[in-house]
């Protein structure tokens, strides 16, 4: 027994150690930092930072831009989450059909955006969204629609980001759903067919209930992911215009790494952390009932 424990630590130890150094310790450090006024001056001389209790959180509560970022992030989540889920499920169902041809080609196409470098994609998308020379408005123009000034109009910018985010997240979630679909035993469908169920009924009463663990996983991961929206607005708009695409993490980045108010930035991180934890717990609770 003793030796087995020893061997467990030999194998798990290195990764546990890395996890400790790069995840656990920083989490506690940022909790501590959030209670200080740690700024650029304190970076050289730690003694210049003071503990200021919950002052950062009080400031944050009155910070107009933080609330703006908060609302923007939830706006993105509330649209991107259902849209990605439905589209990914649809894609997966189509890919799972027996008579779909060139399945692998489609799988690759769906999955490519996920593995491609975000920076490279963002540059391409900034061109797609270019109102005068971009693909998006050209296509809309074919249907006689005059497209908006996507990234420079405060009303449309966040929607443009959401389009980008959904497109990017689609492949990964399609693959997860596909894996879930393939785990459903074929007998269930056969039984349903014997009972005279049509395709829609099979989907509703066999596929969906059987996919439930996958759906819970997918949506939970999406909540966690979308709440940390950062790269897309950072690359495409830097939070503008009029802070319409400022997300919580982008605001954190701005405070922490542009203004070097690391204490304040940490308090944003703590709030985000609590937000993600509580939403995740809520999501898992809902699925259990």
């Amino acid at each position: 027994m003793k030796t087995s424990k020893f061997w467990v630590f030999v194998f798990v130890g290195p990764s546990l150690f890395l996890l400790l150094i790069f995840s656990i310790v920083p989490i506690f450090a940022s909790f501590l930092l959030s209670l200080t006024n740690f700024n650029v001056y304190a970076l050289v001389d730690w003694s210049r930072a003071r503990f200021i209790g919950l002052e950062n959180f009080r400031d944050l509560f009155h910070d107009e831009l933080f609330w703006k970022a908060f609302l923007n992030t939830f706006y993105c989540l509330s649209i991107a989450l259902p849209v990605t889920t439905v589209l990914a499920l649809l894609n997966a169902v189509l890919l799972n059909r027996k008579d779909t041809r060139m399945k692998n080609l489609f799988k690759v196409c769906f999955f490519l955006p996920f593995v491609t470098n975000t920076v490279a994609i963002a540059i391409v998308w900034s061109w797609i969204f270019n109102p005068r020379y971009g693909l998006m408005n050209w296509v809309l123009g074919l249907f006689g629609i005059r497209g908006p000034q996507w990234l420079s109009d405060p009303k449309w910018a966040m929607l443009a980001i959401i389009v980008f985010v959904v497109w990017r997240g689609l492949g990964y979630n399609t693959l997860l759903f596909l894996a879930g679909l393939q785990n459903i035993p074929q007998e269930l469908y056969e039984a349903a067919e014997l009972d005279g169920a049509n395709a829609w009924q099979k989907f509703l009463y066999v596929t969906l209930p059987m996919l439930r663990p996958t759906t819970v996983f997918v949506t939970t991961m999406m909540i966690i992911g979308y709440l940390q929206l950062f790269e897309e607005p950072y690359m495409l708009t830097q939070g503008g215009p009029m802070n319409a695409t400022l997300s919580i993490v982008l605001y954190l980045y701005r405070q922490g790494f542009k203004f070097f108010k690391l204490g304040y930035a940490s308090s944003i991180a703590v709030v985000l952390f609590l937000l993600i934890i509580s939403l995740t717990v809520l999501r898992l609770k809902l699925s259990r009932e």
Partner: protein
Amino acid sequence: MRKLMIFLYLFLFALVALSQQRVLQIWAMGEEAKKLNVMAEKFVQENPNVRVEIQAIPWSAAYDKLLTGIAGGQLPDLAQMGTTWMAPFGAIGAFEELTPYLAKSFIKKETFFDGSWQTVTMNGGVYGIPWYVDVRVMFYRTDILKEVGYERAPQTWDELYDVAKKLKARGEGYYALSLLFTGVFGNEFMPFVWQAGGKILDEKGNVRVTDPEFVEAITFYARFFWEGLAPTAGGNLFQDFAKGTVPIFFSGPWMVRMIDEQTPEVKGKWSVALMPKKVKRTSFVGGCNWVIFKNSKNKDLAWKFIEFMTRPENQIEWYRLVSNLPAVVEAWNFPELANDPMMKVFRAQLEDAMSPPNVPQWEEIATAISRRVEEVIFKRRTPQEAANMLKRDIEKIVRK
């Protein structure tokens, strides 16, 4: 055996020579880092027992690298420093104060342009020496302005507004000038404030953004967007300039070469001009300075290198290498600068150019300014309201 002896002898000799050699470590960024070795070789010829080590840092990583370097005490002797970074790093106390060095050197305040010298001074101390400058001027299409009746560039605010109206009147899809309206555009906006005679902070540290001059600048800037004279749809600067849909923009010397490279078809159809005048024609001056780090062990050597780079013949040499404009006034007497019609404009603009206040919170202030001006551009607030809000924002930032 004899061969071995010779080898050992040579080895010892090399060891002794190396140990006497002093190493000067320099951090440089971007294009500068690639070409700096040419200057370094020249420097070594003059100072044979010195070795210069240049570490290239990409601009995108430079801020973090400097900051972690300062936090960890891992710094070179000397570094190239963007003018807007002088204050944040200077405030931390990373740079050597240079007044004692200046006392026994040919380098003086008057060696450089005023606006450029402004970027190295903080709280009465001197924390760097200007290396090269970027100054913004007006780029415009001569042929298109001629079409609307302007034989020369607009000289005043009124003329700029007038020509803008006429350029817009050419039809749908035509604009007059390109201005930034999103992101952080303090560098683009501030010249208008200075031209109107306004300022952000006065000598006593009072916030002066509610002064009529500042409000006037906001109004002037935003009006180009309200009336559709400046596009809010992000096009492409080069394409728009070449097509003539946006025939005016404000930018720095690097654009001269870039326009020639990107859109050779408009060669000879464009020129540069001084900033338009309200009460002044002030522009923004940036560029890079040299700084010596406080914990350097080769400060004398680093200073020697700065002196070397400041000599007019080396300033012009550097201009030949990468087209960076000399910060040293005397270097502008060399024929390739003195006789170039475009460079003459830059030279004249340098006489009337300023840099933002050297305060460590500049980045935060610039972000606040951009945010409020943007709200005016999108008509969420009147210029006066925005200025009042901005005053509160900046006071909060400076107080901390």
